[in-house]
């Protein structure tokens, strides 16, 4: 076969075949395209977004670019407050951030790490415009009126040689001009630059830069921004706050993940959180254990029901199936409230037990607002997800297997255990995967009936999504949960084999 086979039209057969197949493939692709796009948009992208959010931390360097740069030179371990340069940078950054109203967002972001930063930023935002830095503005404008001329500023800032000489001024002016357009809807050529631009100009001048119009700056009394910020709140003089800013200045952070496993970035690298804040590891473990218990309960309760369903006459089976599916048709809240009425200490079950005399009236069972409550209610809710795959697998096991086993001399139990059960394992597998995956993601039911010890990690995720708005942490927790599920899935595949999972047929 050294010669390529030639098709009727004279081309190599292989090429013709490929062409024919390509057309077929394109058509197939076009058919599944809507689904593919849908999954991409609604499933892959949100997950990618979540993964990204769990490490994303651009807000610090975007809101405080100069401060972050200036903090490079500061030694976080020194125990000293940063020097005046950092506060100068902070002043410019803050003045701009206030106009974009992004300083409070940054404040809440950093408040996740160090308590108090939210109000510090909020307060500073209000005061930063009222600093005494207008003395610089006045001094420059008094020295030469051209410094008060917006047009002149535009001209200077278009001149590359001036820009090169005045790095701080240039950077401050550029961002100011951008802000004037974006946030104020004005034009820089009509607006006098704000105080912080003159502050930058002064700082350039002090460091020996040549000014476009020379001004003697030695006569100006410098304003200490360090003192000014310290006056707003002495937290600004606390190295701890600065360490937080510096620690979280990179664009990407592992901080959320550390937080998710009860660790934090301390003064000397990663360290454990204080014991009274450790909660996530406990919750992850509890979520796993409780989900497994729920799964186990579902197998125990669902197996006989599925067996009954598969072996009853169709009409009776359908009726029973409706009962099984009933939980699907009632709203989650109604079901959960029903469980409350049943399970609470003054509830139906306890009343009956007391009436029968099994439990004493003053010693009623605690069946709700604890793990028992969560397991009972979730087992009820998730039972159909166990029964349905089990049922559909059992339906395909012919009764003749059991008969064959019995005719071969097996007792009912041996026939079941050696012959029927192994064949229903794929159904158990599918049911377990379904129930387990659904269980670890549930949070409404645990929240309502779980009390304090019956809540899941998902409850914390929901809290961070909806209340604390700490989406980064929520994303990190979610990512860890996803990873755990995938690892368990892999383990399951290794042990049982995923081909052994059947939802039906």
């Amino acid at each position: 076969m050294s010669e390529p086979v030639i098709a009727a039209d004279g081309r190599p057969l292989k090429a013709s075949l490929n062409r024919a197949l390509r057309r077929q493939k394109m058509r197939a692709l076009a058919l599944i395209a809507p689904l593919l796009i849908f999954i991409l948009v609604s499933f892959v992208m949100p997950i990618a977004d979540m993964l990204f959010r769990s490490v994303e931390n651009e807000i610090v360097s975007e809101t405080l670019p100069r401060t972050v740069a200036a903090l490079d030179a500061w030694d976080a371990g020194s125990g000293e407050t940063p020097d005046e340069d950092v506060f100068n940078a902070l002043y410019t950054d803050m003045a701009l951030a206030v106009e974009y109203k992004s300083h409070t967002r940054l404040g809440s972001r950093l408040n996740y790490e160090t308590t108090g930063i939210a109000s510090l930023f909020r307060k500073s935002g209000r005061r930063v415009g009222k600093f005494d830095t207008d003395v610089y503005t006045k001094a420059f404008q008094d020295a030469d009126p051209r410094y008060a001329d917006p047009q002149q500023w535009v001209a200077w800032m278009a001149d590359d040689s001036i820009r090169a000489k005045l790095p701080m001024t240039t950077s401050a002016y550029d961002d100011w001009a951008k802000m004037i357009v974006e946030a104020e809807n004005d034009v820089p050529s009509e607006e006098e630059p704000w105080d912080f631009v003159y502050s930058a100009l002064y700082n350039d001048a002090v460091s020996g830069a040549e000014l476009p119009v020379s001004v003697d700056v030695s006569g100006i009394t410098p304003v200490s921004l360090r003192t000014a910020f310290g006056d707003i709140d002495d937290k600004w003089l606390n190295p701890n706050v600065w360490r937080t800013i510096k620690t979280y200045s990179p664009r990407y952070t592992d901080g959320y993940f550390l937080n998710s496993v009860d660790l934090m970035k301390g003064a000397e690298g990663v360290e454990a959180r204080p014991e009274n804040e450790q909660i996530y590891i406990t919750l992850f473990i509890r979520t796993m254990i409780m989900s497994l218990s729920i799964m186990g309960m579902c197998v125990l309760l669902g197996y006989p029901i599925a067996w009954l369903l598969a072996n009853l006459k169709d009409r009776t089976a359908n009726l029973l199936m409706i009962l099984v599916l009933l939980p699907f048709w009632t709203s989650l809240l109604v079901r959960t409230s029903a469980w409350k009425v049943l399970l609470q200490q003054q509830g139906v079950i306890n009343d009956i037990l007391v009436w029968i005399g099994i439990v004493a009236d003053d010693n009623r069972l605690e069946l709700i607002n604890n793990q028992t409550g969560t397991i009972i209610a979730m087992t009820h809710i998730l039972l159909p997800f166990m029964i349905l795959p089990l049922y559909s697998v059992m339906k395909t096991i012919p009764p003749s297997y059991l008969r064959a086993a019995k005719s071969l001399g097996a007792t009912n139990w041996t026939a079941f255990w050696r012959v029927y059960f192994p064949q229903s394992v794929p159904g158990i597998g599918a049911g377990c995967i379904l129930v387990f995956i659904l269980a670890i993601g549930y949070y409404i039911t645990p929240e309502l009936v779980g009390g304090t010890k019956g809540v899941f990690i998902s409850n914390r995720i929901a809290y961070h999504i909806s209340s604390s708005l700490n989406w980064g942490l929520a994303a990190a927790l979610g990512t860890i949960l996803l990873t755990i599920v995938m690892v368990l899935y892999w383990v399951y595949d290794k042990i049982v084999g995923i081909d052994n999972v059947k939802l039906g047929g």
Partner: protein
Amino acid sequence: MNVTMKLMATSCLTLTATMAFADGHMADEMTIVSWGGAYSASQKNAYHDPYSEKTGVKIINDESSSEAVAKLRAMNEAGNVTWDVVDVVASDAIRLCDEGLAMEIDADTQLADGDDGSKASDDFGDLLVSDCFIPQIVYSTTVGYRTDLVGDTPPTSICALFDTDTYPGKRSLEKQPIGNLEWALICDGVAKEDVYDVLETEEGQAQAFAKLDTIKDSAIWWSAGADTPQLLADGEVIMGSTYNGRLFALIEEQKQPVAMLWDAQVFDLDGWIIPTGLSPERQARALDYIMFATDTQRLADQAKYISYGPARKSSAPLVGKHATLGIEMAPHMPTDPNNAKNTFLYNYEWWADYRDDLDAKFQAWLSK
């Protein structure tokens, strides 16, 4: 993989369906978000209906306030804000304002002056706790108890919560640090005005949690406002904290054997915010609505339907009788001088800082 894919695909489908429902705002419609139930009904009667009548604008009531913060953020990120006015508690308003999700409002120029001629900023006074927040009602988180289960000496102080010797039995508390930690300190001998200073320190926090430890075994933690009234009605708890309006309904409307304490009740505010990112027309209409709905008369009107106090000082004299029960509402208002003798002022600023930290500690404490 099949199974998981199917499941996730389904949930995504539902999600997109909900989102697709979103935009499509008509020129004469606005969506107002609130808490639902009796509260939304009181707003409909006092604000929405009169406003629709006056302007012809149709108001769509959305009951998503409990998740307003997260939803607003998601809408903002998607660049498609479908809500016009949102009813939130003050702490959420502060958060939304910080996040840039709510627009700042100047009380004096954008809100109506009081009937008595006072400027809006004076009329609302200290209740303007955030630049973005227009207060609407004052409510209290307070304690209700079963009169038939507390023996011969009904509780008179908030500290009955911690007195398991005199009042044995379960008590329901809100599943969050706010309120509980303050009560714990007050009942552990800390003066009211020092509470936040003490709570700021590690020792103070430990003290509060230690006090809560004493009732941890007999506490049921609630997360929905309806929980405590239900638990009280069922006799599941002998006392529990909840909003004063819920207790009013339980006592006056359902005639349950329940009474309430007006002691160290935590004052809190509920009010409006307008989301950022609205088109100029929608923003103008939202402002118009706010101007209308928060004037002196309208705020007083709402008290006819629910026992929450109007946020304006000038509204207090106008509070009348309950629309259906016919009882005088003023004595049931958290703002009534008789009820407000020993109130506890909730420090929003402080909690905005400490909430993340204390919530983590609170949850860790709960799960131990």
